[in-house]
């Protein structure tokens, strides 16, 4: 027994030494997201994409080498904070996360008190970046999406009577809805129906579609994810209701819903930062790398996550961050660089992306429309 203990202890010490000697060379990046549970698809996409990006960074062989550790949070704030603490024990120096909004808000305040630099791929609420000056986003904030959608609809005169179906139990959906309504009032868009559903009763959305039909809506705005959206499209088709649909970035993925007749999605419009069928070199290379690794088509969460690692790489290079710096020192250096005038990044989810001190990204949303089963630029 004692001998076994000795061996175990020696092993632990050697492992500890090995880890500390490695820490001198690589910058430790933590990632947090749901890789199990109902939101698992988002976390898995982010994890895979971050791994791809880290491999690419390390393959370049520059001075900066990354090591990635990704922890599961099951889309639960409590577990997310636990994951954050685990990563801290591991020696995380920069946090590339978290994936979903509510956990991100809980983790954000921990990161603020530790002064840990935090760049989230996809937690899109305004409340995420207002936690502290060390929290930054790669995705659009929800308010921006809501405002941009209302502007787009009014500029292009896509509809005069607007119906809305949203998920009242989802922070993402209500976040977009709130600014959409405010901007719609500003632009004199007439909202004739505003129907809610929750995660618990999202299996049948016929009632909500019927309400929009009864109100005579000629455009339905869907600030929701693609799974319920596919049911709405089906319900509208079943009741012979011809109308236009306008979605946001959560709509991306609707063409890959299993058992969904994609012809129903013809003519659906959406604002999205990333389209997997784009033909630019960066997207093609990324989609290929992702498919080689997982066999799946990446969604916009994956693209956002890829950009997270690449933005961190660029910022670390410009700030001269080294692996022996403390998390807090790295945070100060990165904050200064990422908000500086000269810093701009061209990535999968947008060109010449810049950040201001609020932590929000500035990039142009792309209007897309589904034609013949693929996304086409709208204008």
């Amino acid at each position: 027994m004692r001998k076994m203990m000795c061996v175990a202890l020696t092993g632990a010490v050697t492992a500890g030494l090995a880890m500390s000697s490695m820490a001198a060379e690589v910058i430790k990046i933590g990632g947090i997201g749901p890789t199990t549970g109902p939101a698992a698809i988002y976390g898995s996409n982010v994890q895979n994409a971050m791994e791809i990006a880290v491999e690419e960074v390390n393959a370049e062989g520059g001075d900066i080498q990354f090591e990635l550790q990704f922890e599961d949070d099951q889309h639960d704030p409590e577990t997310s904070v636990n994951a954050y603490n685990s990563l801290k024990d591991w020696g995380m120096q920069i946090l590339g996360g978290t994936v979903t909004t509510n956990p991100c808000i809980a983790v954000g305040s921990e990161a603020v008190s530790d002064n840990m630099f935090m760049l989230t791929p996809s937690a899109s609420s305004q409340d995420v970046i207002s936690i502290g000056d060390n929290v930054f986003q790669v995705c659009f904030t929800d308010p921006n999406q809501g405002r941009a959608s209302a502007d787009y609809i009014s500029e292009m005169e896509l509809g005069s009577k607007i119906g809305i179906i949203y998920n009242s139990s989802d922070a993402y959906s209500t976040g977009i809805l709130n600014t959409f309504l405010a901007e719609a009032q500003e632009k004199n868009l007439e909202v004739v129906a505003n129907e809610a559903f929750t995660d618990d009763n999202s299996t049948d959305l016929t009632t909500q579609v019927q309400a929009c039909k009864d109100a005579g809506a000629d455009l339905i705005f869907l600030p929701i994810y693609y799974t319920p959206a596919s049911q709405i499209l089906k319900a509208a088709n079943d009741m012979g209701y011809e109308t236009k649909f306008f979605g946001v970035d959560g709509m991306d993925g609707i063409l890959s819903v299993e058992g969904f007749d994609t012809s129903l999605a013809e003519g659906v419009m959406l604002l999205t930062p990333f389209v997997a069928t784009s033909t630019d070199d960066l997207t093609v290379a990324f989609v290929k790398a992702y498919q080689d690794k997982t066999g799946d088509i990446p969604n916009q969460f994956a693209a956002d996550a890829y950009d997270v690692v690449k933005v961190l790489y660029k910022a670390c290079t410009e700030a001269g961050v080294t692996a022996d710096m403390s998390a807090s020192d790295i945070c100060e250096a990165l904050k200064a660089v990422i908000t500086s005038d000269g810093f701009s990044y061209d990535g999968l989810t947008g060109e010449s992306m810049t950040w201001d001190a609020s932590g929000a990204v500035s990039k142009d949303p792309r209007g897309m429309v589904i034609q013949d089963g693929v996304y086409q630029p709208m204008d």
Partner: protein
Amino acid sequence: MAGRKKMKKSTRSNLMTFGFVIAFWALIEIVRMTGHMTAKIGGLLIPVCAYVVMAISLNLVVGFLGELSLGHAAFMSAGAFAGIYFYTTAGAALPQWLAVLIAFLIGGAAAGIFGVLVGIPVLRLSGDYLAIVTLASGEILKNVLGAMYIGSDSRGLHFSLKDQFSLGMEPDGKMLLKGAMGIMGIKKFSVFTVGIVLILITLIFVTNLMNSRAGRAITAIRDDEIAARATGINLTKYKLMAFVSAAVFAGFAGVLYALNYSSLVADKFDYNLSINVLVMVVLGGMGNVLGGIIAAIILTVLPEMLRGFSQYRMFIYSIVLIVMMLFNQAPAFVSWRKRFMMRFRKKAPVSGKEGI
């Protein structure tokens, strides 16, 4: 004679329970003082305390009253939201310790009131029917809290169940409760000792209640409802007493839990959480307070300790859960364990006779 012996046994098991909690506190404080505390363990302390209080309080209903409640998380939620709502609004102007204290009281009271509201209709049912209704009331509270918007500006408070926009707030207004996003910007208050004190208060209440006249009435109802009614026990009164006390302590646990995080969302308190707490009670043995405490600690810490298995984590967690259940409750295991303990007991007097 038999009665005296039984009393002694219950006193001894109570002392063991208190001793365990205090030893747990001392252990953690020693680890902290010697600087061996990791961020992971440090972050788990308050949730562990909250779940321990939840398990003890649910034991009142499941273990002692013998009714299956599947909505215990709702009381935690009611307490958390009421307490934190006060803490972030009126409490912000008070000294923190006072605000925390009042938040606890308000949280407990709110959960208690909700307990009465749910309890009066629900306790007319029993068994499976009661379980379903508690489950439903928990879901109702979760959905209502998740759809509630409260904001304040210079014109006063605004309230809506639809969306933030229909509050008609002035631009400089402040959102206090934001639907699915819940309450944000909570000034954290996570003191492990406060958690331990709450556990001890819960224990004192529960052990005293169970050794009182009311407690014996409650266990009599569990053992045979018809016989209890025949002896003149007021069923509704004692059922409600157990149910509401459990709700109040769940409310306290909710406040303790919520103060540990900067944000509070209604979605957290879904039936999964209720079931988790129920698993703690069942694993620890129904009616066994110390067992419930230990199970609560293990089940909260275990998923974090299994992080090394990455995506197989929850799979392994489930297997461990099944094995633990079998080890604790399967008849073959129980008799094997008893035989093992007997052997241990026979040997014990040799090494330490004066200890007994």
